């Protein structure tokens, strides 16, 4: 009887230890940082969706054709002396918008990220927006133009843009076709998927406001 009880106790002990081990192992795995390392350049560009790229190239060529059409018209206008002045003024207004010398607005998307993020994500998100057809981009209301000083990571890890220290939430706004921009960011292997895989407790909000305003630089 005693022998049998001793055996049962020992069996129970083993089972308890086994269960404790399983729980411990599961806890270790849950706590482990199970994230993809996108901090290195390897993987930041690979596995892109080829169909999306084809679409981007096609759209880009269509835009080039539109630009040619516009330039053809402009050339016709400038060739006629009487129209030259009007043509120059029109061109000045257009170039002022491109240079960031005019306040602008339009439809588009806003990506708000609550986490502290590595500097590389700033360049990658902005690049993703321009690749997907954004016509103008701002980060925390700082519009990116030729005159903007790039993203700089300070020794304490803070990110500076155009001499201004940024702090979360980081809002990336892009004026353009909101459906195209949104689907680009949310696409498989897209930037949001990569950030989710790389940043612990990644918190973001992607919206398509009817109107995005950007101040002149």
């Amino acid at each position, binding site marked *: 009887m005693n022998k049998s009880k001793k055996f049962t106790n020992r069996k129970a002990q083993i089972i308890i*230890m086994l269960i404790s*081990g399983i729980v411990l*192992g599961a806890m270790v795995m849950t706590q482990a940082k199970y994230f993809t390392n996108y901090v290195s350049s390897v993987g930041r560009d690979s596995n*892109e969706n080829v169909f999306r790229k084809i679409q981007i*190239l096609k759209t880009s060529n269509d835009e080039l054709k539109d630009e040619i059409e516009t330039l053809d018209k402009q050339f016709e206008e*400038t060739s006629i002396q009487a129209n030259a002045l009007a*043509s120059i003024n029109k061109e*000045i207004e257009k170039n002022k918008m491109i240079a960031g010398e005019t306040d602008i607005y339009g439809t588009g998307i806003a990506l708000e990220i609550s986490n502290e993020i590595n500097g590389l994500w700033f360049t990658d998100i902005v690049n993703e927006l321009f690749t997907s057809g954004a016509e103008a981009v701002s980060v925390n209301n700082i519009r990116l133009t030729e005159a903007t000083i790039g993203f700089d990571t300070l020794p304490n890890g803070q990110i500076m843009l155009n001499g201004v220290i940024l702090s979360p939430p980081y809002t990336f706004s892009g004026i353009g076709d909101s459906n195209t921009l949104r689907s680009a960011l949310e696409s498989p292997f897209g930037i949001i998927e990569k950030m989710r895989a790389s940043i612990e407790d990644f918190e973001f909000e992607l919206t398509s406001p009817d109107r995005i305003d950007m101040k002149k630089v």
Partner: protein
Amino acid sequence: MKINRNSLKYITVIAGILVGVLVMAQFRTVTPLASSYPIDQIEAQKDLIKSYIDDEAVLKSRIGTLREKINTSLEQNKLVSQTSNLENLNILKEEIGLTELKGQGFKIELDDSPFIDRDNISPEEAGIVFAADIRDIVNLLRANNVEGLAINDQRVIATSSITSVGNTVLINNSNLTPPFTITTIGDYGSFVIRLSEQGTLADLQKRVKENGIQFRIDSLNHVILPIYNGQFRLKFINAANE
């Protein structure tokens, strides 16, 4: 063979931990999406991409020619078009990359490891230059306040995209192959100091040391940056004072 009691306890706990780790790993592993496209379809995709890139070169060349013709025409009509307006326009063109830019600067040459054939390797190979490397350098140059820059004769402006399709790097959607020469107008000395700071382009510098990526920087007395030959998108933008 008799296993003593203590050993049995340890074995049981370790076995339990292993089972726990394996079970959790099973839950958390995402199955990678494998390509199910036959080779001829992949070739067709490549051909399509190539045809778009070829078309794009022709279109950009046409844009360049038209912009030149417009400039000549405006110069010829200078008296009618008021000199001050024309000057304003030219200043704006300079600001957005529509004029050549000349000055003192430097160039960065970036190339794959000499032991690598870019066409026959995985896009994950650390010895090749990625679009992300070029983006990081361009951003660092902009953070260092350079006046302008070009990559393999493609003028890079604020809205330029630097991306890739497989092992191909696309800048302004133009197909560029290594070596990549980043030419810039700016202060060489301050950029070299910046490069030497700890953590600057850390991943690239590591791959230069460990994976054979070639990186070289040289100062230049006379740099001429080409005119941007791409499109400006203004379909969704409106001037706020309209």
